[in-house]
């Protein structure tokens, strides 16, 4: 079996996948009668060429880091957690309850409490499918998908019938008090030199980066991570080593759910400042693509999250400044997911073939 050198595997495969996705996106844009080069210019300028654009790109990035990490840690234990979306929405409920029920004196304590609450709610939402998988052998993919629907329905019920303040028209909680409002990047000393206008990216970004570091530490430096990875590679071997499979499923899924839940600190507490319907806006699913593209490594996840942040923000700019509908960003994201995830093997085979070609020439 021919293999690629490591640098090609880590750098070249995602890069070539992206180029393919970009090429097909260009064809699609051309087909609807628009200019691909113009579109790319708008996307790059709107998301990367100004501090304001970066403020949005990093806001999306923060969410995607959390959901990408959630998929990553479960993946290393051999679990495919598709339920990030539902876990994030439940995390949003945790944030809302923490912010509304207790009058916090300062945003920092509120942040700590809301983070713990979000993580706990997300973890519980993931623990139920995990328990079913560990004890009853139900398939984690199926149950986590179903739990996304249950979460959405539960949130709608709570927003409409329980949490909605009397007299309010839209299904949402009350606004959080001003005291729990998180500092955005333009309010943080040092960062305010770069971000001069109000941006949605907020302190949660640093929690996301800390979480990435923590996930790396857990997976590759602790006994727990060692056992999770061993279990993920081979369940029979894990049994031989005396690693309890049920425990590994529970722990990996709980951490995964907690990470997905934490995402809501960014959007619910940091941006919307109240809980809305469908607060996670698909970020749970984007996390799957982020983890795939990031090769299930926290560093890769952070980089892939920036890329998807760019696609999200750039896509919004397209809708704003061109005749290209905002839905096109879904097409572009879909193509990126298709090439980086599903067609990964195809791109790899192509590169292996090209490399072997180069090698033969050297010999001759």
């Amino acid at each position, binding site marked *: 079996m021919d293999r690629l050198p490591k640098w090609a595997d880590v750098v070249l495969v995602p890069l070539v996948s992206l180029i393919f996705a970009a090429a097909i996106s260009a064809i699609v844009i051309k087909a609807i009668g628009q200019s691909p080069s113009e579109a790319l210019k708008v996307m790059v300028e709107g998301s990367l060429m100004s501090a304001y654009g970066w403020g949005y790109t990093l806001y999306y990035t923060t969410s995607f880091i959390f959901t990408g990490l959630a998929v990553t840690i479960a993946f290393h234990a051999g679990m495919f957690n598709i339920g990030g979306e539902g876990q994030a929405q439940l995390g949003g409920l945790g944030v809302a309850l923490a912010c509304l029920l207790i009058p916090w004196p300062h945003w920092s304590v509120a942040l700590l409490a809301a983070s713990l609450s979000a993580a706990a709610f997300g973890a519980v939402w993931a623990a139920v499918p995990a328990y079913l998988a560990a004890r009853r052998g139900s398939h984690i993919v199926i149950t986590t998908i179903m739990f996304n629907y249950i979460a959405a329905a539960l949130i709608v019920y709570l927003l409409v019938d329980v949490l909605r303040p009397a007299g309010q028209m839209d299904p949402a909680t009350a606004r959080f008090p001003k005291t729990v409002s998180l500092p955005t990047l333009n309010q943080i000393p040092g960062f305010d030199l770069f971000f001069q206008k109000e941006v949605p990216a907020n302190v949660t970004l640093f929690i996301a980066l800390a979480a990435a570091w923590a996930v790396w530490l857990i997976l590759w*430096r602790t006994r727990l991570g*060692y056992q999770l990875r061993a279990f993920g*590679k081979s369940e029979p071997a894990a*049994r*031989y*080593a*005396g*690693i*309890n499979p049920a425990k590994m499923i529970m722990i990996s899924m709980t951490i995964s759910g907690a990470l997905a839940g934490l995402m809501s600190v960014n959007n619910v507490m940091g941006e919307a400042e109240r809980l809305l319907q469908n607060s996670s806006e698909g970020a749970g699913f984007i996390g799957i693509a982020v983890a795939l593209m990031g090769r299930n490594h926290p560093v890769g996840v952070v980089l892939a999250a920036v890329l998807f942040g760019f696609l999200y923000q750039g896509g919004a700019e397209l809708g704003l400044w061109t005749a290209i509908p905002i839905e096109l960003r879904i097409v572009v994201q879909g193509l990126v997911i298709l090439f980086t995830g599903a067609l990964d093997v195809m791109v790899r085979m192509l590169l292996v073939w090209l490399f072997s070609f180069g090698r033969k020439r050297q010999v001759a």
Partner: protein
Amino acid sequence: MPSGANTSGRQATAAPFAIELKGISKAFGPVQANKDISIAVPRGTIHGIIGENGAGKSTLMSILYGFYRADSGEILINGTPTAIPDSQSAIRAGIGMVFQHFKLVQNFTVLENVILGAEEGAMLARSLAKARRVLSDLSREYELDVDPDALIEDLSVGHQQRVEILKALYRQADILILDEPTGVLTPAEADHLFRILSGLRDQGKTIILITHKLREIMEITDHVSVMRRGTMVGTVKTAETSPEELAELMVGRKVLLEVDKGAPNPGKTVLSVQDLHVRDEHGVERLKGISFDIRAGEILGIAGVAGNGQSELLEALGGIAAATGRIVMNGTDLPLTGATANGQTRREAGIAHVPEDRQHLGLIMDFEAWENVAFGYHNAPEYQKNALLMDNDALRADTAAKMERFDVRPPIPTLPAKSFSGGNQQKIVVAREIERNPDLLLIGQPTRGVDIGAIEFIHKQIVALRDAGKAILLVSVELDEIMSLSDRIAVMFDGKLMGFRDPETTNERELGLLMAGVSEGTP
């Protein structure tokens, strides 16, 4: 390329060699699997090919059967240069292959399997009738009797192998390649296979036998070619060589074939197993009431054909499978079911376990060597830096030391397990388990897929552990290994122990009968 031409037509030209390989080379990336290999196999002979794992035997046969294409070199079939780009071409050129792992459809009958891929026309009836006729001829001619209407899943392994041979003959193979054919057979079945092969040879068929068992080479082949590290180190007439010379050619140095071990000095009972039963996940009883003791300083060998409950015995003792009955270790009952019956508690009780299937149980193939050295002992205090973190540096240092003591090559702790050869993988597992200084070592198929040089080393380690006063339970399907290592032999058949024998007084015939379930009066 008219390689599909009728080979029997060519026999008239009577080329001296059925197969001739000239200067075959094949590289996988930087690894040169075959280097300028040339062999000539005379028509109507049995030609053995031996070599250690990774010597390039399988690659060479895969090139001959069209799975790989050689980078350079030429293949001549009956004197005619022949291109073999795929296995269909190989079949058309008259080459048949019997793989180590059979390629049979379990819930098809023998006849259906034989015609699979060689059906003629859309309706099966005609092909089936023809196959039935051909099969009955073949059976008569070569002692290849198999019930054509039996389902494969109901046949013994030996019979399944005959179906594979019939498949090749049905496709009019003149050249038959057998890859490690006796690995799964009882001694009696192996003898029968050799009679079949002799019969085929007498009828003018050419047979290539790939094996690592020197005894078989000596017994049945006419010529033998030895491969080492991708090159052909020599082809000799079997009658003019000896096992010692072949082993030396294979390894490149003198090898001790007999295990050098003194008389046992058994002490107190370490392990006592009483009426042990194990059911698999389908509820089928795999272990049907087994009782035995092992004493300190003693090797108990469990002989038997694969699949008669040996795996389940090891798994029950190793805490992997749930069981009923009693397992008493150093006077204490071990838990047999529930959360406390696991690999960790077994290790704490002083049991180390070298599993039968190192690639699926004993190692994580994607993990690096040092991570595998912690496997099962990841809770050991010396591998922890503090309450939270593991001490990866200490682990890597320990791995490097173990690799040196056990001569693991290459001695690089950061190489993934899958990058080591079978023998070196096994040395990593054996080093990990033996260096824990266990009271009892469970060791399953210690030398399966392990090259001769490493076999010698692993056997020495097992004997050294015994001489240090430890108890050892050895499970192996290699009768030679059981006979040469064990102080006592128990034979397992159909989930039961057929009896105990003394290796000094028993012989292969007696053990072979017990392995086939014939008890000869004594229980």
